[in-house]
């Protein structure tokens, strides 16, 4: 029984080191042919650029009130009009892109940073660790994402940072489950048994052989979860539990805009469209990455 893993042990490194670049090239080629995915990537890049260049792109100060131009309709000076305090909506949207992207990326980073190691350990070691981690993940998953985020934001306090932590914790169980499932599937592969047979310790096996195989679906899930996290941040800010005024965020802009929907529709149309397009971009990108990296799932 030991001969197979030992025989395989001679080849795990070469096969494991040769396959990924080829797989990566194939995945990249497949991604590059997918027009919807490229459109998604383009939208995401544009939003990133806008967020990064906010100080240079923003035509006005996003928090500076101008009571002479309260709720002005879009014109040559204020392209998307002004809000209830006369602030330029384009400028607030440009700066709001930072809050949305930061919330999306940081909360998913929190979720991956906690969920990935927990899922890997649960899947690889099994036993009691697996039972405890899986049950906690199940319990967290049974509290709907936004309800848990609202509750955590309520108990942690209202701020963008707390909203990000709350969204990250709520999204974490998805990564635990995914990493656990992948780790279980990969740990019985011959090259992993081979690595074990040549005496590699658990930490090195997990990092060298399990993790690289777990990463592609995690990347796919991360890009799709960024979309969910952006909506979650906008939802929390819309409810007044995210970005605190006067700092702009797309969700908080909609929170005030809903009270002026009749008189100043531009206040709600443009920030909402920004959330919609950004989330659509991440969803298209995520779908494209899934098709390219993880065709079995599709």
């Amino acid at each position: 029984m030991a001969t197979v893993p030992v025989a395989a042990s001679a080849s795990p490194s070469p096969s494991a080191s040769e396959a990924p670049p080829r797989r990566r090239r194939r995945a990249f080629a497949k991604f590059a042919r997918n027009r919807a995915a490229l459109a998604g990537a383009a939208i995401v890049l544009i939003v990133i650029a806008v967020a990064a260049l906010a100080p240079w792109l923003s035509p006005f100060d996003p928090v500076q009130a101008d009571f002479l131009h309260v709720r002005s309709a879009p014109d040559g000076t204020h392209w998307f009009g002004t809000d209830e305090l006369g602030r330029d909506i384009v400028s607030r949207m440009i700066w709001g892109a930072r809050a949305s992207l930061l919330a999306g990326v940081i909360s998913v980073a929190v979720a991956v940073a906690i969920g990935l190691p927990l899922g890997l350990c649960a899947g690889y070691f099994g036993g009691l660790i697996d039972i405890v981690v899986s049950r906690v993940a199940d319990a967290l998953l049974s509290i709907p994402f936004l309800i848990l985020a609202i509750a955590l934001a309520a108990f942690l306090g209202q701020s963008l940072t707390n909203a990000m932590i709350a969204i990250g914790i709520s999204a974490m169980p998805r990564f635990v489950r995914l990493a656990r499932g992948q780790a279980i599937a990969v740990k019985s592969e011959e090259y992993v048994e081979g690595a074990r047979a040549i005496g590699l310790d658990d930490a090195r096996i997990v990092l060298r052989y399990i993790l690289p195989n777990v990463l592609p679906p995690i990347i796919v899930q991360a890009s799709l979860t960024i979309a969910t996290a952006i909506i979650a941040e906008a939802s929390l800010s819309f409810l007044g539990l995210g970005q605190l005024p006067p700092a702009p965020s797309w969700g908080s802009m909609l929170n005030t805009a809903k009270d002026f929907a009749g008189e100043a529709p531009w206040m709600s149309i443009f920030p909402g469209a920004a959330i919609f397009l950004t989330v659509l971009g991440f969803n298209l990108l995520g779908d494209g990455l899934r098709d390219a990296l993880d065709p079995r799932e599709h």
Partner: protein
Amino acid sequence: MWRILVHRVAIAVPTLVLVSMIVFGLQKMLPGDPVLALAGEDQDPHVIATLRHQYRLDRPLPVQYALWVRDLMHGDLGKSLRTGVPVSALIAKKLPVTLQLATLAMTIAVAIGITAGILAAANRGRALDHAANVLALSGMSIPNFWLGILLILVVSVHWHWLPSSGYVPPTEDLWLSVKTMIMPAFVLGAALGAQLMRHTRSAMLSVLHADYVRTARAKGLLRTTVIVKHAFRNALIPIVTVLALLFGELLAGAVLTEQVFTIPGFGKLIVDAVFNRDYAVVQGVVLVTAVSYIAVNLFADIVYVLLNPKLRHR
């Protein structure tokens, strides 16, 4: 079959216990000493000690948890810190409103999602399939509170077709109740319908290639009969699970929808509680939501086993 069902129930029990621990733990995350906050200006040590005893904060943490669970078992979710009304009574009053909204939204989601999913799968690669996919992706990407605001703008402000907010109980005026609920239900159902469409399409595509569907076609059956009677009935099995999983999103989406349309339901209750720092209500709503989610999914698991002949006869 019984072994599978017992296993499903056995998994639900520890999940419930852990959920109760998480919800109990929420109040421990509050910064500062809650008793000092309650005592306010009056920092008399005697008052503080009485409050600490009243809220059992002078007991060890495991004892506090055990007593809290004992109260839960008796249906006691605590009292609203603001109004003194029992949380269970508040939830019982608001829940029917949200259930009405959720039922209507789920009906819309099922009608749109399943029909579009079947049509997309039956016309794979054609214009209808592409259109359904674009709509589904848009439905999943649109924030429902924004969709709500847009609909209010168009349907209520410009066309004056439907009221923009408020709630009328069906027992009072059924027609007006439906009129006030239809727009929020559509907003809530749209995103769910989009997800349901993608799952239905995918489930249908996997069964449309099965041998028994090919046999049914070879027998010369009508295309519609093959799709509805042979393919859809089998695709329905995974869809039941998806519907149960979407129940959580339905409740979460209701929070935002109720906020946009000023509906006095379960979702508005938690948001108002957050702003009033009424933590007992927040805890109660989270707990009831999680328990209903677990119950709905357990029910779906049982239906799944009953619907699936392979599992039923095990």
